[in-house]
């Protein structure tokens, strides 16, 4: 007799005792949650035993559950090893969810407005517990996703899995690849730092090149929300990044997945007769069931991947955050994100329209159309020499183009501005000016000169004092008839009344930096003829030092960004109207605060 007007758990306890009633209750909950497997079934599955009851309860979740109905209940044994799939497709899917979750976390702390976006970044870094961690994971995950999706495509190409009947699976995969690239790229702008602004400016300028002009101009306006990227552009990229592109991505992930399940995973090329596709007909002894084998494998791969990412962001990788975006100042050596370097490299080959628009379009269209063009039946390696040659040729080509996209290739800056940049640039891409990491204490106020490093050992002090004498005699005048002191005092606002250089103390980081400086000057001795470099460290404010870098050299004849050489391989001094040489000077300065910690470990 029930104590309540309806049958209840209390009646069960009365009838069966607490222990048994509880166990049966839990068992029922588990069975409902898994859509068909009770505790005993799960236990058997995880132990690797055969199912003890019939019909096989491990097939039930595929039949009755929502999530697993999208997955096949068994796979062919040959596609469950490392080869041929390397779990790249599964990891791509995982990254879609990984990026969504970390992205939502960041979204909570972010407002897409140029007024506050950068401040939001600082706040995420300085005030949000695990904020930097999430940002690092999201950023690293994005880069990893681009890499994994690309490798997934490469693998599919190599094993010829795009062939009939999977042409459309490949087609939708190329769309997913493009969406992945664009997702990653559109996220680039959001921190609103210099890196973001200029990488995206380069990317968006390709849109502007689309012919005819009226189309390019208007596409550019649509994307950037104005002639330059500003508040509108940031909002558009944000909406593309969090709404439009993810929506498309989820749709195409669905399409892609459906096609994968429909046609089943293609077997390794060698296991089938030419022209056959037996993936759907899996003999009983070749079946590997999703529960428990593939499921445990997938969860394990998620675990390993996540662990690798977390290890990387704990010790090796931090998402870059450069100075606040500044449309007025273009940093030297701006590049597109690494996965678009090949476009930047191609742009250096010539016409913007051909290499910036037509060429990438051809690449994408070629990839999409490839399974419809390559209709040969065989998937065997030996029968696909041409296709494999194309694949490796393209891989090599993209590598070379990407290298060409680097600022090291084909971008000519004058030697003096390159050296100043190398010495003083702010941290970017784990690269920092030589002078910035010098410990604050070793940055002793004083004046230092590269001449010290051209002296014989033991002779440094006299070389430096000889140089001081030269300066005192009015050597190295600055254009416009000014002395160096006037140049520094009036032109650079560095209050100096005399120039007295000393030797940098041996064994200090400053000494090393000066040696490096001297080495750079030596490498550029043709362009910076009779050149010297000076570093002037001034105590500026409590805890703040000013560091001036000054370069002085004889102007030489230049052609095409390189010095003209005479018969002896020496550069030729340029002369003014009176036939005398021209002394050039260039300088830059930075301020270094004792707490600035350039490249110290986080938390130290």
């Amino acid at each position, binding site marked *: 007799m029930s104590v309540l007007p309806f049958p209840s758990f209390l009646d069960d306890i009365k009838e069966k005792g607490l222990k048994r009633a509880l166990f049966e209750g839990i068992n029922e909950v588990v069975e409902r949650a898994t859509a068909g497997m009770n505790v005993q079934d799960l236990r058997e599955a*995880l*132990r*690797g035993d055969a199912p003890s009851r019939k019909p096989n309860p491990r097939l039930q979740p595929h039949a009755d559950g929502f999530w697993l109905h999208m997955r096949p209940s068994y796979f062919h044994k040959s596609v*469950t*090893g*490392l080869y041929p799939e390397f779990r790249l497709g599964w990891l791509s899917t995982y990254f879609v969810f990984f990026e969504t979750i970390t992205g939502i976390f960041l979204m909570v702390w972010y407002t897409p407005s140029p*007024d506050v976006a*950068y*401040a939001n970044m*600082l706040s995420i*870094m*300085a*005030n*949000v*517990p*695990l*904020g*930097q*961690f999430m940002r690092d994971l999201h950023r690293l995950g994005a880069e990893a996703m681009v890499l994994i999706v690309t490798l997934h495509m490469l693998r599919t190409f190599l094993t010829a899995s795009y062939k009939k009947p999977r042409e459309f699976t490949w087609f939708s995969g190329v769309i997913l690849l493009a969406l992945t690239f664009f997702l990653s790229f559109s996220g680039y702008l959001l921190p609103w730092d210099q890196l973001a602004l200029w990488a995206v400016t380069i990317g968006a300028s390709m849109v502007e090149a689309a012919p005819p002009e009226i189309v390019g101009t208007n596409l550019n306006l649509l994307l950037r929300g104005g002639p330059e990227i500003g508040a509108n552009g940031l909002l558009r990229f944000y909406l593309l990044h969090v709404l439009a592109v993810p929506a498309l991505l989820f749709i195409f992930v669905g399409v892609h997945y459906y096609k994968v399940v429909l046609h089943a995973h293609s077997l390794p090329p060698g296991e089938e007769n030419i022209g056959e596709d037996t993936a759907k007909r899996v003999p009983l002894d070749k079946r590997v069931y999703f529960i*428990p*084998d593939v499921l*445990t*494998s997938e*969860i*394990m791969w998620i*675990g*390993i991947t*996540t*662990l690798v990412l*977390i*290890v990387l962001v*704990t010790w090796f990788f931090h998402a870059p955050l450069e*100075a*606040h975006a500044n449309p007025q100042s273009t940093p030297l050596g701006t590049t597109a994100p690494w996965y678009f370097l090949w476009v930047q490299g191609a742009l250096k080959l010539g016409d913007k329209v051909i290499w910036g628009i037509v060429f990438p379009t051809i690449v994408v269209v070629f990839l999409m159309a490839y399974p419809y063009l390559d209709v040969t039946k065989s998937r065997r390696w030996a029968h696909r020499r041409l296709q494999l040659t194309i694949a490796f040729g393209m891989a090599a080509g993209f590598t070379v183009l990407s290298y060409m996209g680097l600022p090291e290739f084909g971008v000519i800056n004058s030697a003096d501005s390159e050296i100043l940049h190398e010495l003083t640039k702010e941290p970017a891409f784990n690269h920092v000016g030589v002078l910035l990491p010098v410990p604050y204490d070793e940055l002793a106020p004083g004046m230092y000169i590269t001449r010290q490093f051209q002296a014989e050992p033991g002779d440094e002090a006299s070389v430096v004092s000889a140089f001081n004498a030269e300066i005192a005699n009015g050597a190295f005048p600055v254009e416009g008839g000014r002395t160096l002191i006037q140049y520094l005092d009036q032109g650079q*606002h*560095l*209050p100096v009344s005399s120039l007295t250089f000393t030797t940098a103390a041996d064994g200090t980081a400053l000494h090393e930096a000066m040696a490096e400086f001297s080495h750079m000057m030596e490498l550029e001795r043709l362009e910076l003829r009779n050149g010297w470099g000076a570093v002037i460290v001034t105590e*500026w*404010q*409590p*805890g*703040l030092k*000013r560091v001036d870098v000054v370069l002085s050299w004889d102007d030489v004849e230049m052609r095409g960004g390189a010095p003209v050489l005479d018969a002896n391989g020496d550069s030729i001094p340029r002369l003014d109207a009176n036939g005398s040489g021209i002394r050039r000077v260039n300088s830059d*300065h*930075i*301020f*270094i*605060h*004792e*707490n*600035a*910690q350039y490249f*110290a470990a*986080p*938390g*130290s």
Partner: protein
Amino acid sequence: MNLQRLLVERIEHRILVGTVAFLGIMVLVGWIAINENGRMQAFQRQYEARAIERGAELFTANCTTCHGANGYGGARGPALNTPYLFGHDFLAETRRERLGLETEATLATTSEERKVAISERLVALEALEAPIRQQMNAAVLKGYNPDAPSRLANLGWGGGLPNFLYTTLVHGRPTSGSYWPQAMAAWAQRAGGPLRSDQLEDLTAYIINWDKGSEWTVEDLLAVQQFPKVPADGAELAALLANAEPRIGVETPVEEIMVGLEGLSGDVQNGQTLYNGVLACSGCHMNAAVAPPTEGTWTRVNEVRLLEPQFAGYTPEMYLAESIIHPNDYIVPAYGAGLMPANFGERVTYQDLSDLIAYIASQDQPIG
């Protein structure tokens, strides 16, 4: 292949590897979480340091010309690297004691004996201050007042120094051109200037970094080349006012005004200057829309207003004097009451009033 065996073939291995991976994740995330406070503080410190660096860069590029490379000021702008801006009081200790003693001396409960001791101590304190005041003399000559040592207190600024600096950077000093060679421009993009708000914050951080707290020395004060200028010094202004000709006053009855006007002859030229310029009468008295027009006033007063019974015995001068000093005593029909300012009594002298009346008369000769 070992990797194949470990990761693929046996379910126990997969479960083991997966479990170890998840454990590793939890340990690492836990470890990161434990260190988060330290990391966030380190980032904050680092960020503030770099803000000062960027501020220094901006200052050198934009502010040095007027405020000097080291912030000591000059002919074009005041010093920022100065104890005065940060409100450091070199006489703080003696001042605090002196104020306490002075208050105590005024209390009824203080004994005469104690009062004597207090006045002795006050003399001693003065002697203690004397050498410091002597040292600061050079700064005093440049406009520093040792007894009003805080810029913000002198300005009556309610907020903190960072707010003061930031606000000044945003808007500039629009009227400072009247006491400096050139007004300080607005620097914020929102106010039409070139800098973003984060750059203004960097600049503020840089200027604040000059603060030495309790370490300021008189040498720092003496290094200053130029202290802030005050548009009008309060004392000077009071002296000016004391020597000025007396104003008529808003309460003075018209009969007394007429006595004051006796013997004065109006200067039409000066009256016109007052009417069109300083007092801005012509701003309203122009086309009969807001106030009766200037032209024909004299005729209207003679032929219309003075016929009214209340103006029996009035001369036109008296009518005009009353209309200027007590504008609401009579409102010309069809015009609004209370529109004309009633404070001209505070603003004009008897001579000014006489000049004004002469000017109005000159605009329309009296009849007969």
